[in-house]
């Protein structure tokens, strides 16, 4: 798929490594000679709050924010957050969801319930890909690679050159973690076929 603009929402829980993932994504897009704008939340929300990062890629980008109903892709690091931000998705858009539940405090204390049947709800709105990135990260030996694994999955929808991703990763992670993260990224890219077939079976 070769296109000239993408709007991507990346959402999840503060502390999940979303900022690094979006940095790598922007860098890769930049290396592909796109104009890029990214807007993210720092500060308070990073303490385990709900976070959303907007990434806009195109010939010329003005606003750093994506309008609700306009995002080509929603990449969610957590299921409930996928449901919260699905409103950003455009018609026939793509949703990639890390198959992980992190209950917010109100759920932990019993004041609220974690939403049921998130998969079913999300499916109504676009193509949904669930990835158990935690499990794969543990297999790779480091839980912190979850973000880059998910980025690997995402990369399958963008058509950037492999080299751009690799350079972007090496520019954004510490030297001693580059190999690990490239491996995580490659693992992510190889997943899509499997996820796809799981979807078809259903």
């Amino acid at each position, binding site marked *: 798929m070769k296109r000239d603009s993408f709007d991507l929402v990346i959402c999840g*829980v*503060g*502390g999940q490594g979303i900022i690094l993932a979006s*940095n790598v994504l*922007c*860098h890769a897009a*930049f290396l592909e000679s796109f*104009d*890029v*704008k*990214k*807007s*993210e*939340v*720092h*500060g*308070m*929300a*990073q*303490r*385990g*709050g*709900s976070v959303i990062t907007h990434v806009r890629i195109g010939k010329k*980008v*003005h*606003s*750093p*924010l994506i*309008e*609700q*109903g306009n995002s080509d892709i929603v990449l969610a690091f957590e299921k*409930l*957050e996928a*449901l*919260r931000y*699905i*409103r950003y*998705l*455009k*018609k026939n858009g793509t949703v990639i969801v890390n198959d992980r539940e*992190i*209950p*917010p*405090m*109100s*759920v*932990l*204390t*019993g*004041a*609220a*319930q*974690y*939403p049921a049947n998130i998969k079913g*709800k999300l499916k109504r*709105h676009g193509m949904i890909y669930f990835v158990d990135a935690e499990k794969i990260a543990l297999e790779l030996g480091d*839980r912190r690679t979850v973000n880059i694994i998910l980025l690997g999955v995402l990369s399958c929808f963008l058509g950037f050159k492999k080299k751009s991703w690799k350079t972007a990763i090496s520019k954004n992670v510490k030297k001693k973690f580059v190999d690990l993260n490239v491996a995580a990224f490659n693992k992510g890219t190889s997943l899509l076929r499997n996820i796809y077939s799981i979807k078809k079976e259903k």
Partner: protein
Amino acid sequence: MKSLLSGNEAVARGAWEAGCTVATAYPGTPSTEILENIIKYPGIYTEWAVNEKVALEVAAGACFSGARALVAMKHVGLNVAADPMFTMGYSGVTGGFVIISADDPGLWSSQNEQDNRHYGRHAKIPILEPSDSNEAKLFTKLGFEISEKFDTPVLLRLTTRICHSTCPVELGKREKPKRKAYVKDIKKRLFLPAHGRLRHVVIEARLKKLTAFSETLSYNTIEWGKKTIGIITSGISYQYAKEAFPNASFLKLSLTHPIPEKLIRRFARRVKKIIVVEEGDPILETEIRAMGIKVTGKAKIPVCGELTQKIVRESFVRKTSARIKPYKVPARPPVLCPGCPHRGVYHIINKLKLTVIGDIGCYTLGALPPLNAMDTCICMGASVTNAHGLEKALGKDFSKKLVAVIGDSTFFHSGITGLANAVYNRGNLNLLILDNYTTAMTGHQPHPGTGKLARGEQGKRIPPEEVVKGCGVEFLKIVDPNDLKATEHAIKQALEFDGVAVLIFRRPCALLLKPNPAYVVAPDLCKGCRLCLRIGCPAINLQFPEDREKPLAVIDPTLCFGCGLCAQVCTCHAILAPTKIKKDKQ
């Protein structure tokens, strides 16, 4: 060459390219990364000051010397630094002086939404407003130039969506500006009334010169489109308006104070209808209207909250309904991290049902359920003083149920003066200083209590207890907040004490340490009583297994920090330290 930079990174780059040699700041979202990035460049002295007033004055001193100096802060920081800023406005500069205010429309991480464009007008200094990272870099450099050319500090006004948005930026080289020498000049720097009177005349004339400059500045530009709508805008609002009305004509203002009146009139004559698109207060709108030009603005565009292209567009054309209706899902406000040393204190405060006069930092999160352990939070340092005032109004007995809570960085920022005031005025303040050895909320900047300097070198450490003693406090204890018994005992003692009592709860921020092995719940011992949930730890969840009558507490081993607080509150002794389990198994 281009590089991807956030607005804050771009400002840092701009400062370096401009040959700035002194930069100071006190952290505060969304401004923090400016100094954090300046630190990465050589040849600039950088300093985390104890507060914004101090930061601005240090930078001002450097400016006296002829150096190019910069000071950065969040919007509310400029309230703290306003006093020196106003008179520096009168004084003018020797080396270029750029003051950065990072405003936070939408209150992503702030206690209010004040629009600091008012400050530039109030202090009669020019304001530059970049609309993306590229301009953030350019305008930082331009700021130094304008500052030196017109003998004035320059306010570079950013907003969250400028600071924390990233885009490609063209990089340049470092300049070596000509540096004036320090010369004693009391008429310019020693503000006796007689000198101030003279300078006031000078700065009024300076504003006129700046207006003329604003008329011809290339960054105040007209982009002609259809003449039916003319949009006057600045900063991030330009980007939103550009998407909302791609075909309209634009007057994009970059130097937004003083406004270029002739340019505005020329633009106004050529378009049919004028819309002023600005985030926050109707500032440009009011000034343009005062010129006798008919404009639409805040009658349609909201004053509250941040703008988006959608909000700008739908202020004028019919609203489209949402494609996907938002799902009702539980909110996810930020929480105290697992292992946070603040948690123990709040648990005890909550248990003792105290009135808590709070302050700002990570520890403000103790206000949220289930801890619910805070009554007020106004501004940095206000815990100490508000509590003192409350006690003075309600009487000494009330202080038996009253504590003030402040963080270590906040204590150094503006808690010390309040403490001296309470001691001096014979207060019965009970002050809890939550000393986690860092400024956690804004991403772990050092402060005097840590003794580390901005670039990581060792400075001189000032232990908070020494300051407390120096203020004449007679009851002082240092307590480990993870020891709940000791915490409760100390708080009760402080409440009983006649006079000002200070407790320092000392334990490093969990994010600075490696976690201990996770605690585990023994299912056969857990009675599902929910006591452990009261400490509000994100790692503890309640499950409802089918084979159990009662729910079961479960600790997520990937989140647990191993602080052991939950084990102390569990009356069933069902929460076990990992070492304990191994022993039991043997």
